[in-house]
């Protein structure tokens, strides 16, 4: 026996019991409370379609609310709780809402918006208080969720007799097959209704499939069918709330298959009559499942209401289990059921039930036009069968109406999917029109939607089934209308005086059954799905305990505080070291592309808006790139390493876009060029050394004069080959040392030793930002924001006059040279501190003329400066403006100046 608790009380289950079976085994009839009216509810089904028996499972971070008791298998120590009740399940004060049912009918929520807005403020508190069922856990889920790919020739969904046979046939034909079954056993319908194909056949068939290389997954639901026959499977490795053996609770399979066979069977339908939601009213096949599979007899005096032959099997099963069949109410006229050994009443439909909170006491029915009633503790209902066509419809398939079965069946699909078995050939039924009072005749049990609600929606003008669904909430929540759709459509068709197919059908969308969010997130659930890209020198930096800065997926040192420094203090110290002596920083994340071949220069002159071909070997230049519309989208440097070999660098943040652009140009715009363009972003680690003493640092290490500004030479540092580029992003004489990432550590160590000897230090991104703002260098994402032309950024003099680059044509658009465009300017504070992102206004309340794209300070003097975009900015030098940031509650008086606050002539680059 297996021990579990329900609402704090200990019970025992048998191996293989669902929670629903275990509760019934222990005589528990009341399992939950309904969503809106808090009506007592029991167990209605034995499958995933269960609308009533929703419980909360597990504890702590493993808590899972709103789980169907019919879809969880009891394990040792399972903790379960009922929900949506206070103070307890038997005595629930929320049930008083039932008294207010007349004003809580369909669409009541929308009607709360009528009238003065202040009324909604009153309603809102109570509506929010009452909304929802179980409570979401407050702790994080300790378990992991796996995602795995699988490929096969054929995916078979459903391991009933049809699915097993199809899988075996395909496996024997040499196909790679996957067979999935959402239950914990194969062939559950064969266990419920033993035929010639019994347990032995199931076992032998499964063994044969496996021997032929097939994969069989149980507790696995095909939850979504996507384009190109991609099907997602949800596999429960551990039951909800259970501690998984190896840490993985569930697995999401992405199955790409050549063919899908849907052997998904049918779901039995309830009937609509007054108080059809009481504990003790169950679906007929569910009753049979509990009797035949679990050995649980849910009632002793049983009435069965049906419109088909299948329910008679339930009567036989109950009788064999010792229950008394009090009556079979067969909606069909005689001679239906005439050969039965049970008391059959033809032309009989249930009218209403009576009972207590925990149980059913009697059923009344209209038999041949006359009312009759029976004392009973179980009413087994069969209103026909709804084929499970959800996946077929998700695959883009259409449905046909099967009049004999009063159900939709799969028709054609643009994907390679076939429906077989009971889902393709549902049992014939007799159409029954509800005759009970509609007010308590529930159609959607989960959302407390009655026939009266559908009638009201109709009366208020909701004709489309899609509108009806949203107005009444019918077909929503965890069961997604599996039991209610057909009954609602029947009522709608009746109102419209049309056949059901003409009334329409709502769309079935994934997932077929609820999927936990953690499964969709997979392994990324714990960190928001974000990777961490580690620098080649990550460990070197980590040893210095820097403040890390996420930059895309990269993590880069933002500053290296010493002695309890704050970020601002550390960054300012580091920046001042660069200005006064020397500093070094890791620039490995810059995009880098090596471009080789006789046409390399021509290729680069398509990508870069500046000239390239005029570069001498060993020289480099600043460059930038445009989008086809003429806007600047990235910048960097280009270096001629050899006659036919170049190195192009560009921004870290734009690296992936640049790689895509280069690939696009190579594959589509210039496939004829003799060129190879290789992404070497990670091949080279990059170390920048900047400052007055940078030249001395390099000279000491390479034993010769380092290259002049915008020149490059190969060299050796610490015995490692390096490439030295003399380029500056700081305003000081500076070098970028590129070295293979795998050999970067000794080069860094040698450089750090030399920098320290020159009284320098390491600097991070924050200091780099101070330095580049003071110098007036651009950053992609700040000044280069996708709206600025080369002219707006004062780069137009560098444009390749020969044209031919991407964006050259776009630049001729008249709007790009119209007056009033925003242009790059510098801003110097007259009073106050300039806030990044602040609006540039002429007076309080005026419309902004621009904004602050980056704010910093004069590194030595400490005064507030910024870069910004200002309408007609080039012509407004000396104008006084207000930099206003209401969100930061900061305001500063600023003067418009040139965007170079430091060494505008560039003298410090030169020796």
């Amino acid at each position: 026996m297996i021990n579990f608790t329900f609402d704090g009380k200990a019970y025992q289950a048998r191996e293989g019991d669902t929670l629903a079976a275990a509760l019934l085994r222990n005589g528990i009839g009341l399992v939950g409370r309904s969503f809106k009216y808090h009506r007592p509810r029991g167990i209605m089904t034995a499958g995933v379609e269960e609308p009533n028996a929703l419980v909360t499972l597990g504890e702590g971070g493993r808590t899972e609310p709103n789980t169907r008791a019919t879809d969880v298998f009891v394990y040792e120590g399972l903790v379960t709780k009922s929900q949506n009740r206070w103070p307890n399940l038997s005595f629930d004060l929320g049930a008083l809402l039932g008294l207010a049912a007349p004003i809580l009918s369909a669409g009541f929520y929308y009607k709360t918006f009528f009238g003065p807005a202040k009324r909604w403020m009153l309603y809102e508190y109570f509506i929010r208080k009452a909304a929802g069922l179980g409570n979401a856990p407050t702790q994080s889920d300790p378990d992991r969720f796996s995602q795995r790919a699988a490929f096969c020739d054929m995916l078979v969904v459903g391991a009933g007799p049809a699915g097993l046979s199809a899988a075996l046939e395909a496996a024997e034909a040499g196909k790679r097959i996957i067979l999935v079954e959402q239950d914990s056993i194969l062939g559950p319908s064969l266990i419920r209704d033993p035929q010639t194909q019994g347990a032995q056949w199931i076992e032998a068939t499964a063994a044969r499939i496996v021997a032929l290389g097939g994969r069989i997954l149980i507790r696995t639901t095909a939850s979504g069918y996507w384009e190109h026959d991609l099907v997602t499977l949800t596999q429960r490795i551990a039951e909800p709330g259970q501690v998984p053996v190896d840490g993985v609770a569930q697995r999401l399979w992405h199955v790409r298959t050549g063919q899908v066979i849907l052997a998904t069977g049918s779901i039995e339908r309830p009937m609509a009559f007054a108080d059809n939601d009481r504990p003790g009213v169950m679906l007929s096949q569910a009753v049979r499942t509990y009797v035949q599979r679990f050995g649980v007899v849910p009632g002793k005096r049983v009435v069965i209401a049906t419109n088909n032959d299948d329910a008679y099997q339930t009567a036989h099963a109950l009788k064999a289990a010792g229950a008394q069949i009090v009556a079979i109410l067969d909606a069909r006229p005689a001679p239906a059921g005439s050969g039965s050994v049970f008391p059959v009443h033809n032309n009989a439909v249930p009218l209403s039930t009576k009972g207590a909170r925990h149980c059913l006491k009697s059923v009344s029915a209209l038999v041949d036009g006359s009312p009759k009633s029976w004392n009973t503790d179980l009413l087994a209902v069969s209103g026909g069968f709804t084929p499970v066509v959800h996946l077929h419809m998700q695959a883009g398939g259409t449905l046909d109406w099967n009049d004999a079965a009063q159900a939709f069946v799969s028709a054609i699909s643009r994907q390679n999917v076939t429906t077989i078995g009971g889902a393709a050939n549902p049992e014939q039924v007799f159409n029954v029109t509800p005759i009970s009072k509609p007010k308590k005749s529930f159609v959607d049990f989960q959302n407390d939607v009655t026939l009266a609600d559908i009638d009201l929606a109709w009366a208020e003008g909701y004709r489309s089934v899609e509108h009806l669904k949203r107005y009444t909430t019918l077909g929503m929540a965890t069961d997604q209308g599996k039991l209610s759709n057909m009954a609602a459509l029947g009522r709608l068709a009746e109102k419209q005086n049309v056949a059901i197919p003409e009334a329409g059908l709502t769309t079935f969308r994934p997932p077929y059954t609820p999927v936990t969010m953690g499964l969709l997130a997979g392994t990324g659930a714990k960190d928001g799905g974000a990777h961490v890209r580690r620098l080649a020198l990550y460990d070197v930096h980590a040893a210095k305990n820097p403040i890390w800065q996420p930059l895309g997926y990269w993590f880069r040192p933002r500053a290296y505080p010493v002695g309890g420094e704050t970020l601002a203090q550390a960054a300012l110290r580091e920046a001042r070291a660069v200005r006064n002596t020397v500093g070094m920083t890791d620039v490995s994340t810059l995009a880098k592309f090596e471009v080789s071949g006789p046409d390399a220069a021509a290729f680069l002159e398509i990508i870069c808006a500046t000239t390239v071909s005029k570069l001498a070997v060993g020289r480099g230049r600043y460059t930038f790139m445009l989008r086809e519309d003429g806007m600047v989208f990235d910048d960097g440097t280009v270096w001629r390493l050899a006659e036919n070999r170049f190195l192009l660098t560009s921004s870290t943040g734009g690296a992936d876009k640049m790689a895509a652009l280069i690939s696009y140009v190579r594959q589509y715009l210039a496939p004829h060029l003799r060129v190879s363009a290789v992404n070497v972003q990670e091949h080279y680690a990059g170390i920048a050394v900047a400052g007055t003493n940078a030249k001395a640092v390099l000279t000491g290490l390479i034993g010769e004069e380092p290259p002049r500004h915008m020149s490059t030479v190969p060299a050796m540092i610490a015995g490692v080959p390096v490439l030295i580029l003399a380029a500056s992003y700081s305003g000081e004489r500076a070098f970028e040392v590129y070295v293979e990432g795998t050999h970067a550590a000794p080069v860094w160590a040698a450089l750090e030793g030399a920098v320290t000897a020159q009284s320098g230090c390491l600097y991070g991104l924050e200091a780099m930002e101070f330095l580049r703002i003071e110098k007036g260098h651009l950053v992609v994402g700040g000044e280069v924001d996708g709206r600025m032309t080369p002219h707006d950024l004062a780069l137009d003099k560098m444009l390749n006059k020969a044209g031919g680059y991407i964006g050259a044509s776009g630049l001729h658009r008249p709007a790009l040279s119209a007056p009033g465009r925003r242009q790059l300017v510098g801003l110097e504070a007259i009073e106050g501190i300039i806030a990044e992102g602040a609006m540039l206004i002429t007076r309080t309340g005026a419309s902004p003329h621009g904004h602050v794209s980056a704010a910093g300070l004069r590194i030595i003097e400490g005064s507030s400066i910024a870069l910004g975009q200002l309408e007609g900015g080039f012509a407004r030098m000396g104008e006084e403006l207000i930099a206003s940031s209401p969100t930061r509650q900061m305001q500063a008086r600023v003067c418009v100046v040139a965007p170079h606050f430091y060494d505008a002539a560039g003298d410090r680059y030169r020796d």
Partner: protein
Amino acid sequence: MTPQGIVTVTDVTITPLPAAPLHALEIWSNAPAVAKRYEAATGFALPPTGRSCGSDALRLIRYEPTVWLVEGDASALPTILGEDGAITAIGGGIVRVRISGKGWRTLLMEGGVFDAENPAFTPGSSAATIIEHVAVRLHVVSDDACDVYSPASFSTGLVHFWEVAEGSLVG
């Protein structure tokens, strides 16, 4: 609850390999002539897409229509290529990880989108694919081992992902 069905082999070992010189070889013109020159010089044909060819001293693995990954001593290749192609060093940005043991195919399905379980993915086969959102290249080196070429920046995370996944492959 142990799922029925195929027996998933979970024997798998994850071994980061030492850094090695790797190059990208691209041919932009006269490919048949380059192929002849290459075969004459090395004794091996240029492998077709999705395959590798060569020896431990020099192996070419083809992942793209015009690009091969070169593993080993590439010093002779510039001469072979002449004006018809180029090689570019890329080894500093790639970490090689060997996934070995009977369970390597199962492990590579975790977080993947490529059919590593396909019986046709045999020794000598290669593929460029995505695993756990990381662009990687696969090269089957034997029935029981596959080398993965990962961007260096992602490799620590990817190896950690495999080490965690390795313990829960059943199913």
